[in-house]
């Protein structure tokens, strides 16, 4: 199971709000790492990956500011730089990230509807918006 698939599974399985927020943050981190791993200028996906990286980081940031997210996370500070690609080709990576974005959009939508705190709801909506943009960029516009 790739780290992208694993991140999607963790997000689906998260039982409570803090766990789901942490899983969403982790999902964005994994997505960002994968996207950055495939930013090759010769690839037809280069522009899409360059644009998508910023939105993935924006989504991660939204989760960082969610009040109910548990911290410290214990995650390393620079995960994106520390690992290579999880998928075998740029196209597979794009497909995996699009799949993860679908899960994020769905799960964050649920969280935004059910979270009690305003700031948590706003954070989920903002992150879901970023995930939608990443999905659209990598799925072909």
């Amino acid at each position, binding site marked *: 199971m790739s780290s992208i698939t694993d991140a999607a599974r963790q997000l689906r399985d998260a039982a409570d709000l803090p766990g789901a927020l942490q899983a969403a943050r982790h999902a964005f981190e994994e997505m960002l790492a994968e996207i950055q791993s495939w930013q*090759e200028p010769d690839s037809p996906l280069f522009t899409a990956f360059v644009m998508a*990286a910023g939105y993935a980081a924006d989504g991660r940031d939204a989760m960082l500011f969610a009040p109910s997210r548990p911290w410290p996370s214990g995650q390393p500070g620079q995960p*994106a730089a520390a690992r*290579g690609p999880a998928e075998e080709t740029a196209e597979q990576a794009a497909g995996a990230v699009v799949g993860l974005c679908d899960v994020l959009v769905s799960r964050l939508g649920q969280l935004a509807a059910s979270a009690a705190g305003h700031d948590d709801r706003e954070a989920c909506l903002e992150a879901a918006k970023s995930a939608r943009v990443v999905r659209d960029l990598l799925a072909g516009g």
Partner: protein
Amino acid sequence: MPGRVTFGDFLDGARGHLSSGASSGRVPTGGEDLRDGGRAVRRVILVLARYAQDVASGFGTWSDEPRRQLSAWDQAVADVLDELDHAARHLKLSPASIRTNPGTRPSSGLASRMDQAASQLRTGRELLDTHFESAPDGTRRQHSEWAAAVASPTLRRALLAEIASVAQQVADEVDQAVESPGWRGTLGPRRALNAASHCLRVLGDSVLTAQEHELVPASHRDLLYDMPASILPPRRLPGHEDDIARLRDGVIDSAQRTSRAIWQSTVEPASPSAVTITSLRQMASYAVLTSHHCEILLRAAADKAAIYFPTQDPSHAIGAAVDAAARTRESWLAVARALSHFTTDKRGEVTHATREADGLAMWTGRLAYEDPEWTLTSGPAHEPRSARTLVPALADIPRIVATVHHAIDILEPAADAEHDQARAAAKDGRLLVPTVSQRQADSTQPLTPAPDDRVADLLNEYQVAAQAAADVTAAMSGIAASVASPSRVLTTARAAAGAGRQRHTVRAKPETRRPGLLETSVHDLGVTSPWLVQRAVALDRASEQLILDAAAEPGTGYDGTPAETLGQSASTAAVVRNILESADPRAAALLQPRRPQQELPEREP
């Protein structure tokens, strides 16, 4: 500058009116009033005097300061001011004299041409004046990115030389008018015109003397002629029907708008509290893509140049510029990746400069790719345009070079401006990183101000990007000169402005770094892909970070063994060596034995 009115248009217009009499050999029809002509000549002289005052005062942006030694050009400025003043005084005819010359008819030749020339010169001066503005306290200040060049000593000399040249033309006209038998007028106006003409010729001599001491380069005269007004072309997006020529013009217009926005952000920096990670990230992404698109365009130009100039410098120079553009792209990509580790408390808003850079990335991409509906969000798979489409003829090489030159020219100032914004935000404690451990979490917040070493790494990436952009800009300047591209005025403007200003940031030499284990291995394998090398560097850094974190962790078994002997293998020794050579303050901890935990004294019974 596509379709933009320039100072040269008005100067040429004035010259055209001034030469339509004397040079054409047209004999005055007679009966015209010499005093009408005299008054019109005076109006031209007054405009020229205002130009001379602009030259003397740097367009009002600086006051006179005592100088130890007057240069030939300083002397020329003083002489021109004096002679124009004298000429104007000679021509200040008393209103009474008008009534003493009955029977004449208004001048339709000399006066008319002088008035039209004066009008053109006034408009030209207004054009130059658009690059300056009055501050609330009444002082004059720069209003555009061109202003520093306009007010530079070299451009002012070029302007003074043009003033003198126009004055000679006026003198020629006046002399012919005075000597022509058909003109009517009393002795007074005729003598006044003679005296004024003499003054105009004297000031020309003074400027000639200055030119003999230090010639105004032709490139500076060209820049003066090509100087546009500060008013920018309107922002627009590429249309589906835009052909290559319109797309090229669109890139240049967009580059000018971006250049202005960056310049404004530099002279009036936003408050650190206004800096957002969103804006910093987007600017970096747009710079990556603009560099990438320029590389594609230059590749096409290189293909064609190899055909047209198979053994000449331009072909090799364009090929080298392709590589330089690729390095710029990679360095901006490193900035974008570095920024992904940070955030700011305020997010979402983007600066004016970033919005304009978005437009430039869009325009350069539309020109680089075949798809007429291409956008930054179009998604994967788009074919670059062929060299045959982009550069169909030899004459198109200077055009595509000018287009790329304008786009590339914004990347260095962008890196400097963004560097300063990031530094200001960090200094203000607003560049944040997640709090990852209780050890780091002195505060009770989930995000904490970024540590100095990580901020330094980010700022270093900006400096590397600025240097790479400076290199590719220099390459484009050389190409523009060799293929006679109209964009060579950018080089002259930069040189002229640079002579009179100091860089607002001092570029530190990028941190020298010994390659890590993986990077060395990748190089040993003969891998040259920047992407793979970058990944190896990232993994090496992550290894170093892991060892630093582990060494600092309470309860580790580290006993202060000298760092060089920490690893039994050469591989770990290399990692430790790099840590010790880094600027990380925690590296020192590796050399110092941890003090054994102090034992509590035994309680006395």
